[in-house]
């Protein structure tokens, strides 16, 4: 790190902060991008539910000796597919189905964690995010997964917008809407997993929802909506991490409070 940069941004001296900021940039970008589709499709509750399901995934990973993050990805995928399958194949409304899975998987997670001795400190870092816990492997994993998800999201953005805009129109054009529902959920589960260590289970859906919501207050069209959402996501993640360094606060809540601040600003400036 050049001296002048370190003088200006002293926290960059620490490798853990470098790693955290890299991951922060990646997840700020990623959550804000997927968040645009999540909010357009009114899937905020769904994304919150699968984020909370990650807790049980982490606990199962610990019990069976699998790395917690991949275990969380697998478990959230199972929950996501379960919710979608039941919504399509029963008369129950989607928020009822989500509610059942949400509470069920959260209860399972807490129960499993309780059975593990001496795991509680680690648990807290998964719940609220802990930048000290971000390892070099986490950085590589986060950047790799973020790149993968972003590629699909941008290569297929027209298709995803079309499905969000009107499913029937998309289907008549030959789009396999149900297949894309499952692909989208997989991307969302991966996004949650990537964000676990920095933002934490409880608040990851905030970083998905709030930047898109803030952008929607002021955006005149879809392109601007996407750009502003990404801007809010990245600014929140990076300045939240720096804030948590100086204020000695958990990173997740700090990031989310910055994004909420930006939401309030955009609400004040909203298009009427």
């Amino acid at each position, binding site marked *: 790190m050049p001296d002048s940069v370190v003088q200006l941004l002293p926290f960059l001296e620490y490798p853990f902060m470098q790693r955290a900021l890299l991951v922060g940039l990646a997840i700020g970008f990623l959550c804000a991008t997927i968040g645009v589709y999540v909010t357009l499709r009114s899937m905020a509750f769904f994304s919150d539910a699968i984020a909370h399901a990650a807790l049980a995934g982490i606990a199962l990973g610990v019990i069976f000796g699998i790395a917690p993050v991949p275990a969380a990805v697998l478990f959230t995928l199972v929950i996501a597919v379960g919710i979608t399958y039941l919504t399509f194949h029963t*008369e129950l409304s989607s928020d009822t189905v989500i509610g059942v899975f949400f509470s069920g998987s959260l209860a399972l997670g807490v129960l499993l964690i309780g059975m593990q001795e001496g795991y509680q400190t680690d648990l807290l870092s998964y719940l609220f995010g802990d930048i000290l816990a971000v390892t070099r492997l986490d950085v590589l994993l986060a950047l790799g997964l973020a790149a993968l998800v972003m590629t699909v999201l941008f290569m297929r953005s*027209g298709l995803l*917008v079309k499905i*969000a*805009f009107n499913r*029937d129109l998309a289907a008549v054009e*030959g789009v396999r809407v149900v297949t894309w529902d499952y692909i989208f959920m997989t991307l969302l589960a991966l996004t949650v997993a990537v964000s676990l260590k920095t933002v934490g289970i409880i608040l990851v859906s905030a970083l998905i929802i709030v930047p898109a919501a803030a952008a929607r207050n002021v955006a005149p069209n*879809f*392109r601007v909506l996407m750009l502003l959402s990404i801007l809010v996501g990245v600014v929140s993640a990076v300045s939240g991490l720096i804030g948590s360094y100086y204020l000695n606060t958990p990173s997740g809540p700090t990031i989310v409070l910055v994004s909420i601040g930006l939401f309030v600003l955009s609400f004040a400036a909203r298009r009427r």
Partner: protein
Amino acid sequence: MKADNSESLYPNAVLLVQDLSLVLGGQTLFEEVSFVVDEGEIAIIIGPNGAGKTMLIKTILNLRQPAAGSVTIFGRDHRQLGDFHDRIGYMPQRLDFDRTFPITVYEVLLLKLKDAGFWLRSAGPREKILTALAKVRGENLIDRRVGQLSGGELQRILLAYALLTEPELLVLDEPVAGVDVTGEETFYELIHNLQKNEQLTVLMVSHDLDVVYRYADQVLCLNRRLLCRGAPRQVLREDTLEQTYGSYAGAYHHNHH
């Protein structure tokens, strides 16, 4: 084998519906519906509320899975249309979308052009979009937000969307629901002129017998079953209308003669 037979029986058929039935949640919405729409024809489905008109359209377009029967479009099974999807333009009755969705008319129409990059602004797609908008006299709407459009404007945009890939079959679900009478007049004239100029085949739902008499080559009376089908002046009689609309037939009849 069945498809081959039907094709030789109906050489000009664009749309072939055979014994189609739809059951949802144990309730039969319509059953044993069969008809043929030939190339260049305007076929109009009429029937009271709840007769299954919208569901029939959706089943034909493979948006609902039929309990029985088959649908052939351009000689292909409707579940395996492949690249024939582009030859069909569909305009839903209501556009189920969030009015606050920040998306412009230009962006919505861009979604239909598969090869146009969604993030790159280029002249090619814009020109195509303007051409489609010109057909519905909506060029001035190109940069408007879709959520700000009036009911009539939104319908014209949906029609432009349906026309964008220059389809041969246009399927319209009750295109004037919620538009005032003067608006209705122009919208049907628009469809009629397009149909003549572009050699389109049209299948649409309407509740207006005046429109049926004026524009339909074939009328299909639906009330759970197909109760009449043929040229309006031949098949729309007191008895068939009463069968279709029940006791309200008199009122419908009276209004239009």
